């Protein structure tokens, strides 16, 4: 037993000292930040602004077509044919043609475009026309335009969680979804990366034949445990470094973007009501972030990261012990990782119903709970469920360590044998 810390130390230090660890520590978060920035950039920029001509022969739409980030409206004069020529010759994206029409029987509007227009463009143009026609018809029926505008409402649903004790807290679906998804994906990624390291470490010891020298001082099970724990430490260190770098990068980036948002140039061309709305959304997302129990999320992340990694790391070590090369290991990799892949696929189902039965059972089964429970935790999970799930995960990794240990102690000394599932079962059954 006393040798396990020495093994952990070697496994940890030899990996952390590698250049590849340093590179991954610096470029991992930079890469992720680049991806996030790219997504933010794409979404903030939205689609290219489209130049659209409006030919209004009815005279009803004097100031209804207001330019947005998506569409830049320009008034056209003349006939339908001359407007179409103008659109083609000057490279406009589209033309809204509104002929003279009877307010009692509205219709006959046409949208010409150079390519198939998106649904959002069509619905927005329709919305503008509908609103205006509605207003006009209400005015026609004798209502004061001031009264009409005072009737108009814009709804933003406020969502609150009502707890059993009657406490109200801001609910936070959007923020919870983002955090849950990110945390689950990180766990998935880390289990794969460090599980594979565990496997390769075992294969290395087997191939260089140092293993027999070590086994003359150490029990195979202790060697395996030391390796699994040492690599878990590497993963945690890497994670902490990533978090620190990410924190630094995001603080820098948000400071930069925050300043950018205040500059008048970027808001000048956009619809003020829309801008107000999106600011409101950002503000509500930020306040609801406070509703997520962050210490609980962080604690759960660390627990499920370590627990999930140990559970799979042990199996990866057993696979490594049965393989002479990385290629040999492939045949066992897929079956071992199927539950992990299944949980990643199930994330969207869990997100639609974070407290449904799929979500519940998958967060109890130790093979899927690390990923699935991390999706659920930001939404708030009953304490007993969390405790039960953690308890099962501990039981789960003790079980896989036991199974893996029995395979490992035979496999690690076996060379050049074609290993299949039957062989593994026989090793498992062997008494010593």
């Amino acid at each position, binding site marked *: 037993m006393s040798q396990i810390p020495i093994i952990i130390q070697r496994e940890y230090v*030899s990996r952390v000292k590698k250049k590849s660890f340093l590179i991954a520590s610096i470029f991992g978060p930079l890469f992720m930040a680049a991806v996030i920035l790219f997504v933010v950039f794409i979404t903030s920029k939205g689609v290219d602004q489209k130049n659209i001509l409006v030919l209004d022969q009815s005279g009803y739409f004097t100031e209804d077509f207001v330019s947005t980030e998506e569409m830049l409206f320009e008034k056209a004069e003349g006939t339908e044919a001359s407007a179409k020529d103008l659109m083609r010759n000057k490279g406009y994206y589209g033309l809204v043609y509104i002929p003279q029409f009877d307010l009692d029987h509205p219709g006959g509007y046409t949208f010409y475009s150079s390519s198939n227009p998106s649904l959002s463009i069509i619905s927005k143009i329709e919305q503008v026309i509908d609103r205006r026609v509605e207003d006009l018809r209400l005015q026609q029926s004798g209502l004061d335009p001031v009264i009409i505008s005072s009737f108009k409402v814009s709804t933003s649903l406020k969502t609150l969680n009502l707890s059993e004790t009657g406490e109200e807290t801001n609910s936070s679906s959007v923020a919870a979804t983002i955090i849950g998804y990110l945390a689950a994906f990180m766990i998935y990624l880390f289990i794969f990366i460090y599980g594979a390291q565990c496997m390769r470490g075992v294969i290395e010891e087997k191939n*260089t*034949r140092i293993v027999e020298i070590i086994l003359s001082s150490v029990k195979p099970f202790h060697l395996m445990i030391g390796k699994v724990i040492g690599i878990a430490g590497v993963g945690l260190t890497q994670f902490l470094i990533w978090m620190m770098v990410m924190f630094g990068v995001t603080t820098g980036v948000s400071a930069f973007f925050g300043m950018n948002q205040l500059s008048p140039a970027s808001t000048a061309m956009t619809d003020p009501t829309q801008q107000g709305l999106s600011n409101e959304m950002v503000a509500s997302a930020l306040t609801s972030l406070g509703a997520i129990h962050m210490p609980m999320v962080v604690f759960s992340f660390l627990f499920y990261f370590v627990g999930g990694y140990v559970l799979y790391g042990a199996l990866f070590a057993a696979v490594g012990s049965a393989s002479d090369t990385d290629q040999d290991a492939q045949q066992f990799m897929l079956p071992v990782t199927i539950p992990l892949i299944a949980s990643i696929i199930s994330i969207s189902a869990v997100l639609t119903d974070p407290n449904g039965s799929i979500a519940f059972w998958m967060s109890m089964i130790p093979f899927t709970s690390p990923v699935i429970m991390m999706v659920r935790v930001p939404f708030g999970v009953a304490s007993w469920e969390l405790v039960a799930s953690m308890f099962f995960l501990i039981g789960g990794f003790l079980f896989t360590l036991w199974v893996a240990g029995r395979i490992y102690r035979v496999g690690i*000394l076996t060379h050049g044998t074609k290993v299949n599932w039957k062989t593994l079962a026989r090793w498992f059954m062997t008494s010593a």
Partner: protein
Amino acid sequence: MELLTVSNISKSYNAHQALDDISLSIPHQCIFGLLGPNGAGKTTLIRIINRIIRPDAGRVFLNGEEMTDGMVRKIGYLPEERGLYKKMKVAEQLLYLARLKGMSARDARRKIRFWLEKLELSIWWNKNIEDLSKGMAQKVQFIATVIHEPDLIILDEPFSGFDPVNADLIKNEILELRKNGSTVIFSTHRMESVEELCDDIAMINRSRKVLEGSKSEIRNRHRTGTYQVDFKGQLQTSGKVKISSMEALEGGLTRALVKDPSAQNPNQLLQKLIEQVEVHGFAEKIPSINEIFISNVK
């Protein structure tokens, strides 16, 4: 008292019986040859002594005490299939292996310095194993085996892969270790390599022990009264004198193996030979370990 006693060890893998009721006793401060052809079960027996695998039956005692996991620290083991971490520095690697054997980091560092100097590896201490030649890596493996000053050193096919210079170096180290009180088990299928080194030997063939004892006693026991004689002239089979082989040497000499069951001592045989030929050399032909082994497994 014996240093190591192996009593009635049996081990089988699936249908294959690897060891069948093996018992050995190995005295203090001796070099013990564990001999046998490939696949005889030597490595299995060594792994059992090292507690890497467990026997189906039988027990192992070290210094009269039944072996426990903690006692493997008193053993140094150089396996036949051996290697080191390729990307680890020489000194780091030795420190790791020494600490696994229970040494304190401080003692280990001191001993590492001593051994690297002794085997002329000092300038390589901070190099990765992959940058070392094969012979140098083998020296490092040898250091890892003996660094914790074990009572018992087990070397499985130690000379396979060693160049003659390094093999000689290691041989001298082994002799010195014995002088300083260690006991060495030496496992090999190349009998000629143990001829000069071993004090005691045991032979294993097809998972059974076929022979055990001190080398000189075994060789004496297998004497056949055959003498090697170098002579000039014509030697004929006469009376009880039998000639088993004859070959021409340089300078008109002939070498023959002769045997006379009726002779009471070598002088009587020599007298008979002198009557026939001019004798240039005369010595008893004591069988080599290899010959004894072959005659035993037939």
